[in-house]
């Protein structure tokens, strides 16, 4: 069903999510599009583009390709480019035009592999879905690669970080998480999808514990849990108390305990707060707000345009389908304070005096670059305090 947006931009798309997830791996990624889709990714949604020269190409799709067939030209041209660029694997991502004409991305990849002898993969992203869906599809490939990657020394106890993407977090996050865990004496195996490399891929299959720092991270962690039985925790490491509580739990899990954590008290009355953003970041902030002095008796809901995992939901949390859905929720929810991307403030029902900004790059792209929450920092402590201050004034 079509949806109209008056106040918010269209969000980061699935092919952006997939390209972002594969960005630091040794892949020649081809976005199968006319040029706008690649431009969306390179210019608007991938901050690493300016500092890391990666093999992400645009196929320059033209109408004649859709008439005479895309496969032959792409196989020929990508084969030539892959040889010249010494590519070890090729990944082709779908966009709206291939989706509408029904291009078989897996079939295209198979043809490519036959012609070049280079392992090739097709991901059926469409541009009709949002970024977390693309990350999810790309992670299927990452996991497949991990299964065949050299195994690390699985005798050593370590954790993996899953779901770090520049569509949710600042690009400093990988460095900050590494530093945080090093200080705590906890080894990290792999950091997907910022800070990952080919050498650490194998670690994905044998950590003591996975830590999902975003919704996309939970999807990845659940796949690993299903495949290898690895337990996981969800925490975004953006608030001091959440970080402390999670690190303590990580240590216990590494020593064989079950991943059960004690959450702050949940209230269903008092002032009402809505956090609009990624589920894990939202949950972490919710817990941080609940730990603020005097805020035990507040109702806090998390709403996301990018899905909610049921296991991590609380009553009243909402998976948003559109801008008008959010408008309805704001109108009917009676919220006293709202936290979300600064662009939300364009919605007329929101009051700046009762709003706390939490940048979400999948919404606002590069508009607030440098202000994104950083995993491994205490960036959201100030947000929790800001919420507390507003509630105190009410």
């Amino acid at each position: 069903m079509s949806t109209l947006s008056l106040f918010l931009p269209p969000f980061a798309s699935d092919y952006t999510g997939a390209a972002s997830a594969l960005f630091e791996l040794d892949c020649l990624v081809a976005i199968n599009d006319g040029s706008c889709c690649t431009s969306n990714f390179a210019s608007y949604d991938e901050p690493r583009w300016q500092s890391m020269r990666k093999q992400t190409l645009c196929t320059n799709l033209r109408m004649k390709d859709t008439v005479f067939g895309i496969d032959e030209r792409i196989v020929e041209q990508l084969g030539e480019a892959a040889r010249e660029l010494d590519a070890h694997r090729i990944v082709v991502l779908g966009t709206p035009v291939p989706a509408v004409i029904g291009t078989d991305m897996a079939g295209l990849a198979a043809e490519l592999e036959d012609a070049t002898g280079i392992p090739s993969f097709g991901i059926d992203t469409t541009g009709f879905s949002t970024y977390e869906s693309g990350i999810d599809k790309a992670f299927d490939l990452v996991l497949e690669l991990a299964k065949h990657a050299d195994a690390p020394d699985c005798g050593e106890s370590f954790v993996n970080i899953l779901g770090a993407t520049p569509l949710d977090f600042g690009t400093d996050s990988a460095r900050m998480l590494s530093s945080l865990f090093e200080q705590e004496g906890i080894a990290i195996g792999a950091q997907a999808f910022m800070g990952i490399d080919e050498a650490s891929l194998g670690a994905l299959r044998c950590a003591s514990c996975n830590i999902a720092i975003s919704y996309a991270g939970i999807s990845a962690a659940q796949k690993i849990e299903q495949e290898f039985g690895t337990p996981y925790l969800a925490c975004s490491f953006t608030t001091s108390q959440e970080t402390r509580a999670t690190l303590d739990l990580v240590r216990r899990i590494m020593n064989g305990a079950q991943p059960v954590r004690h959450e702050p008290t949940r209230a269903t009355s008092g002032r009402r707060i809505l956090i609009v953003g990624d589920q894990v970041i939202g949950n972490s902030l919710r817990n941080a707000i609940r730990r603020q002095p005097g805020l035990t008796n507040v109702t806090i809901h998390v709403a996301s345009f990018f899905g909610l995992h049921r296991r991590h939901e609380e009553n009243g949390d909402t998976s948003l389908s559109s801008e008008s859905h959010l408008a309805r929720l704001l109108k009917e929810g009676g919220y006293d304070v709202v936290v979300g991307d600064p662009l939300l403030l364009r919605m007329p029902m929101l009051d700046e005096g009762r709003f706390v900004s939490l940048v979400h790059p999948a919404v606002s792209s590069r508009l607030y670059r440098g202000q994104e929450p950083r995993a491994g920092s205490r960036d959201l402590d100030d947000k929790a305090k800001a919420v507390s201050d507003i509630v105190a004034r009410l």
Partner: protein
Amino acid sequence: MGEEITKNSLAFHTGHNLHAKNTVRIPESHTLHVGPAACARRHAIKAFENHDAANVSHLAVSEEDLAAGSYEDRIIEAVATLNETLPAKPRLYFICLKCVDDLIGTDGEAMVETLEKAFPEQRFAITRIDPIMLSDTRSPSEQNKATHYRFIEPNQPHDNGVTLIGSYTDIPTDCELRDVLASWNMGPIRRILDCKTYADYQDLGKSRIAIMASPMGMRAAKELSSIADMPCRKAPLGYSPQAAARFYGELAELCGKPRPANLAQWKAAAESALETAAVAAAEFEFAVDSSASLQSFMLAKTMLEHGFKVSCITTKGVTELEREAYDWIVENAPDVRIVRTHSYQALTKDGYGLNENLIAIGSDFARMIGAKRSVDLWHDEGVFAFQGIFKLCRMIEEAAR
């Protein structure tokens, strides 16, 4: 685009962070982007950056809508919602369709008719951002520029104004064109980007002449000429002193005015500036990028004629406008490498195989090939006629220092 220089069209995007792009906004108009959500994202973000977000909205169509073969009803519903919600009812709507629309083949004129029937107080136009339709005969961006002039009322009385078409930037304040026009009592210079009110927009049709400042304005010039009975002259191309002198001669004739008294001196000074810059940069080779100049072959030809060592030109293809310059280069400078703009070859171990110590005309290309020296020129913006030649020469000398 015409002839393909290299067959392999796989592209590497440099990202467009270096250059701010303006948005053309006709006062009291609203743009509704219609297509898969992903397709409008960059336009939405750009609208925020250009403080135009209040005039832009997005109708994200689903795969189901497309499978149904039409989304006309959805657009009508969206316009009705916008009319109710926006602080002021727009006078004009631009419905911007994307690549996928070319697959379902919407008849734009029929859609406009339907919309104007549903909303009789408002006018509509279809624009398209559909790079899959780029070809030698069709440039969506050029067509969209033409569409912006469609609502100008025909047969307005003419004044001494000059309407500038096809450029996102104004005539530079230090450009001799301003003095020439002032000496002829011609003015004001009008641009669509400067229009603050709908009346200002209508005034674009009152000018006595139009100047097409960039080849991107070709169709717009035709549209305006036919609506407003306004003769148009093309800006001089390729940083050629001869072309600049010819332009002023033609302009004088068109306006019924005497040629500028200093024309010969300006031409001689421009020739001299090019020769001086060539000497100053004698130790360097040059790469001329099509993102720097929309007439990269003409610019390269001018440089070669004045003693610069041009070793590379990038292009997406040879347009008819540039055919003569291309043929000249092929015949007279066969060693010049002609490569595809934004080719994946930039990522190969030796890049395009170019000397790192060259001067790139265009900072995007410089970044792409890792050139240490560059001239920051983008789409010929901020340069015009003789002023453009002098400015280019200054920038080259600076890059060579």
